[in-house]
């Protein structure tokens, strides 16, 4: 009895795996409805803040734009800080990474607040400096 059903089990599981593989391949390789796959899968992040000084924690309102025709669910946002002068190290400023769930409708934008802090030990060379923030985030484009 066991021998007679084994091929059936193998066939069903094999079919399942094939379907699963095709589905997963679709996640990573299949293009969207339009021709520009990159645009569909990418969202844009921007945000600026002024008035930092040693010890100060400020909130930067980060705008997440969803250029896609599909709903977007952002789960992570972070920023890399770079300084424009050797007199002020980039570690003088830190942006606290964000984790959560931000739902952005198609062709829309939403805001999320990130905390930016200048270390109390920031040197004088940091006065008036403009730090560049490079944002990066992760999310899911929903069908």
């Amino acid at each position, binding site marked *: 009895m066991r021998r007679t059903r084994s091929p059936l089990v193998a066939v069903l599981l094999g079919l399942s795996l094939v379907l699963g593989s095709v589905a997963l391949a679709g996640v990573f390789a299949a293009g969207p409805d339009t021709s520009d796959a990159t645009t569909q899968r990418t969202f844009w992040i921007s*945000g600026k803040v002024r008035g930092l*000084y040693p010890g100060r924690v400020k909130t930067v309102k980060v705008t997440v734009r969803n250029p896609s025709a599909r709903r977007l669910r952002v789960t992570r946002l972070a920023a890399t800080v770079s300084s424009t002068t050797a007199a*002020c190290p980039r570690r003088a400023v830190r942006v606290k990474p964000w984790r959560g769930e931000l739902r952005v409708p198609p062709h829309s934008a939403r805001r999320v607040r990130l905390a930016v802090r200048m270390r109390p030990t920031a040197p004088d060379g940091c006065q*008036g400096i403009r730090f560049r923030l490079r944002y990066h985030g992760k999310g899911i*484009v929903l069908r």
Partner: protein
Amino acid sequence: MRGTKRKATIVVAFVGAMLVASVALAAWLASGTGSGFAKATTAQSLTTSANTPTADLYPGAVGDLEITIDNPNPYPVQVTQIARTADPIVSDAGAACDASTGVSTNGAWPLVVAIDIAAGSSTTTTLNNVVAMDNTSDDSCQGATFTVPVTVSGASNA
């Protein structure tokens, strides 16, 4: 009985695999990038102004220095040092007194202090026994008020 259990297992496995496939098809991974900036303020200089303390100087005596420090910055600061500048100590009694005030600093200068000043405010502090008058003070200096030029330094205390 055993066959039924196996059938159930097969069905569950198949449905589970299909479910995974459905979830995978339902969502695409997305990544976002962008840029912005964070700008630091530029510190405004602390300013000082002299006050008129109680008359306690005479030849051979030490006295106090009273100083008002103004913090124009939008953040609190702590003044940690007060030092003399190269400018001479002058009086309000005229040239004869200014030529020979007999007033000098007393003790260890620069002064190490810890004076907290709130954002956008000022504070007045009396520094005890930090000036002295010797016998070279001109007679015209009697009743005079002396101005001791100093520079203050500190840091953000946010």
